[in-house]
C-alpha cells in the first residue's frame, strides 16, 4: 500500500497476539498502526491512538489469549469504540478465535448465551464486519449459530485448506484415515476425507446414563493406517487423548490430531506429552507462547496468509469464498 492513497487498510493490533498481527502486516505490506494498549494501575484498560484512522478501512486483530479472555475482549471493544469515535470508515474485527464460542445455547435453565452477548457487545462497540476462523459449531452439519447472532456480515474462514495441504505434504494419503472424535464433528472429518479421497472413521461416545461418560466405540477401520483426528478446538485435550488411545488399541500405526484452535489450557501440555498421539497440529489462531517449547509433539500451521488474503479481499470488495477451498501459499 502506498502512503498516498486515501482509504487504506489500517491494521491495528491488540496485545493478545502481536506475532500474528506482524505476520499479517508483513503479508499485506502495510505497517501495524501506532497504537498502544496498556492497563492503568487500577486495572482499567487504556488505548492510545498515535495516528489518524479518519475515513480509513480499519482492521483490528485481536485473538484471545488462553486465560486472559476477558482482558482481550474488553481491549477489543475499547479499540473498536475508539476507532468509531475517531471516524473510521469501516471497522472490521478480526477475531481468529472467537471468545465464548462454546457458550452458544441455553443448555440449562438460566445458563447465559455468552456468545450472543459477545456478538451484541461487538456490534454495540461499533464493529461493522467480523472476520473469524472456524467458528465453533456444536453440530457442524447445522453450521454455526453464532453467525446468526450478528446483524453485520461475519466471514468465517476455514483452516481446512491449510490442513489438506499439510496432510498432502507430509503423508501418503492412501495410508491415512480421517477420524472424527465425536459424532458432531463427522461432517468436518468427512469433508477432509472426501477431498483427500481417503477412508473415514468415527468415534462414538456411549452414554449409558446422563453425566456418565461411557466407553468410546470406534466405527470404521484404522488398522495399520495413520489415523488423523480432526477437530475445531483442543482445550484440555482429554477427549482427544482418549480417542487417540482407542485408535491405537484398534491397531492404528500412528495417531495424530489436526485442530484449528489450540487453546491448550490447564494441564493440556502434560496430558499431550504423556499421550499416544504422535503429533498435535494446530494453527496459530491462538497465541501459543512457550507451549511449542514445552511440547515436542506440537506443530503449528501458519494461518496468517489466509487471514491476510481475507483482509485484502474484504478491503478491495472481492469475493472471499475462494479462500474456503484454497489456502494461499
Amino acid at each position, binding site marked *: 500500500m502506498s502512503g498516498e492513497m486515501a482509504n487504506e487498510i489500517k491494521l491495528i493490533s491488540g496485545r493478545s497476539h502481536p506475532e500474528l498481527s506482524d505476520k499479517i502486516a508483513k503479508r499485506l505490506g502495510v505497517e501495524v498502526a501506532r497504537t498502544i494498549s496498556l492497563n492503568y494501575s487500577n486495572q482499567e484498560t487504556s488505548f492510545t*491512538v498515535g495516528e489518524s484512522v479518519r475515513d480509513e478501512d480499519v482492521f483490528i486483530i485481536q485473538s484471545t489469549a488462553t486465560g486472559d479472555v476477558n482482558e482481550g475482549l474488553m481491549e477489543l*471493544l475499547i479499540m473498536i*469504540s475508539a476507532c468509531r469515535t475517531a471516524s473510521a470508515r469501516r471497522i472490521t474485527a478480526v477475531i481468529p478465535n472467537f471468545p465464548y464460542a462454546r457458550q452458544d445455547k441455553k443448555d440449562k435453565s*438460566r445458563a*447465559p448465551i455468552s456468545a450472543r*452477548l459477545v456478538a451484541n457487545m461487538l456490534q454495540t462497540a461499533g464493529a461493522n464486519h467480523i472476520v473469524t476462523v472456524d467458528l465453533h459449531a456444536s453440530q457442524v452439519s447445522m453450521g454455526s449459530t453464532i453467525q446468526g447472532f450478528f446483524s453485520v456480515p461475519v466471514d468465517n474462514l476455514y483452516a481446512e485448506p491449510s490442513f489438506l495441504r499439510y496432510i498432502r505434504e507430509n503423508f501418503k494419503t492412501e495410508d491415512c484415515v480421517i477420524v472424527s472424535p465425536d459424532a458432531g464433528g463427522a461432517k468436518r472429518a468427512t469433508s477432509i476425507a472426501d477431498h483427500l479421497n481417503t477412508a473415514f472413521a468415527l468415534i462414538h461416545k456411549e452414554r449409558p446414563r446422563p453425566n456418565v461418560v461411557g466407553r468410546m466405540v470406534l466405527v470404521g477401520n484404522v488398522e495399520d493406517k495413520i489415523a488423523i483426528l480432526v477437530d475445531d478446538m483442543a482445550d484440555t485435550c482429554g477427549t482427544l487423548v482418549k480417542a487417540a488411545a482407542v485408535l491405537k488399541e484398534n491397531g492404528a500405526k500412528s495417531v495424530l490430531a489436526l485442530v484449528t484452535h489450540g487453546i491448550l489450557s490447564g494441564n493440556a501440555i502434560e496430558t499431550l506429552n504423556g499421550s499416544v498421539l504422535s503429533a498435535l497440529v494446530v494453527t496459530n489462531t491462538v497465541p501459543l507462547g512457550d507451549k511449542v517449547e514445552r511440547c515436542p509433539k506440537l506443530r503449528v500451521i501458519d494461518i496468517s496468509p489466509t487471514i491476510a488474503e481475507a483482509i485484502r479481499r474484504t478491503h478491495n470488495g472481492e469475493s472471499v469464498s475462494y479462500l474456503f477451498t484454497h489456502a494461499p501459499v
Partner: protein
Amino acid sequence: MVRNIVVLGGNSHPKLVESVCSSLGLPPCNRLLGKFSSGESRCEIQDSVRGKDVYIIQTGFGGNGAKLNDHFMDLCIMISACKTGSARRVTAVLPLFPYSRQPDLPYTKAGAPLFKAPSENSRKDYTFDSVPATPAPGIPRSNGLINGGDITNKLLKTSLTNGSGPCSPAPDGKPNGEGYFNGNGTNGVNGAHADSGATKQASFTTHDYENLSIVNAFQARPGYKQWVAQAGTLVANLLTCAGADHVITMDLHDPQVQGFFDVPVDNLYGRPLLKQYIMQNIPNYKDAVMVSPDAGGAKRATAIADSMGIDFALIHKERRPTRITDRQNASMMLVGNVTDRVCILLDDIADTGNTITRAAKLLKKEGATKIYALLTHGVFSGDAISRIKASALDKVVVTNSVPQADHKALLGSKLEVLDIAPMFAEAIRRVHHGESISVLFNFD
C-alpha cells in the same frame, strides 16, 4: 423481608453483597461464578429469577483473584443470563462505576503534547514542513530535511526551559530522555530539571500506568497528536446491551456519565456518611476548613461546607509553567487560609493517591495542624498505600464501595472505613417498591 426480589452478587465485593442481603433480610441468590480453564467466565444462576426483580451487585474494582475486566464481563454475563432467564427487571448495582474517570492526556506542564526523545526514524521524518498524515491523493508524506533533527532538538530545549517548574518525580518513572539530555547544560537546563521534565507525565495524570516505560517509548506519527480512548460511553452501552434496565451507582466522578445511559441511573451520594463522620469524629469541626484538592471538586466540597457552616479553601493545580523556585509544590496553589486550622480534604475518588498526598503536603506547609482526607472511593492502586503512609495525612476516611480489608491491614488506624451497605439496601428496597429515593440524597 422483601418479596419477589433477588440479590445476585459478583465476585468483586462479596462482603458488601452479604451485608446488603442481611439488611434486606433475604439470602443472596445461589450462583456459580468462576472461570473455565480456558479463561472464559462461567456463570450459572441456580435460583429461579422468572418474573423477579433482580439486583446484581458488582463493583468496579480488580481483586479477589480476578481482574477488573473479568468482573465487568461477569457482570454483563450475569445480566444477560437473568434477562434470558425471564427476569422482570435487572438492575446493575455498581458502587464504583468502572471507567468513569476520563483519563488525563499525557500532557506536559506547558500544555503541549509530550515530546519524546526522537528516534532515528522521526528525526528523519519530522520537520517544519511535516503535514498531518491525513490521507489525500497527491499529498506526499514528508521526506524530511537533512537538518530536521536539529530543529526537533531545539524545540525540545525550548519547551523544557519554559516549563522549568519541577514536580515530584514518579517513584518508578524512568526518564526516557536521559541520554538525550545528557551533556546538554546550555540554555540553563540542569540535570535535575531535565529529569523531572521527563517524568512529568506521571505527576500530572490521575492514572498511573502499570508500565510507564512503554508509554514513554510510544511515539505518535509525526504531525499527529496522540489521544487516549475514553471508554465511559462504551461501558454504559455495554451494560444496556447486556440487558440492564436500571443502574444504581454512587458518587460518579463525572455526573455526565448518567447521560450516557438510555436507562434510569440512580447516583447515590456518599456525602451523608462523610458529613456524619465529620460531625461525630472531628473535634471542633466548626473551626475546621474544608479543602477541595482540585478545582473540579470545589462544588462537592462547598456543598458540604455550606451546609455545615464551615470555612472553605481550594487547591488549584497549575498546569501553566510557573517560575516559582520551590520544587515540590510549584504546581499547586492554595486559595484560602489554613494556618493553625484542622483541614478536611474532600474528594470523590483516590486512585493513585497522588492528588490527596500532594495536597496534604501543601496544607502542612501552609500551617495546617491536622489533615483528614474524606473520600468516597478508595481504590488505592499502584503505590497509593505507600504514598499515603509516607504522607502528611493524619486520617483517611473512605467508604467500602470497594473492598477495604486489604487496605485496612496495610494502613491500620490511619484508615477509617464507612459502611455503605445500609444505604444501598435502602436504595434497592425503595427502587423495588417504586418509592422515591431522593430522601437518601438529603444529608441533614
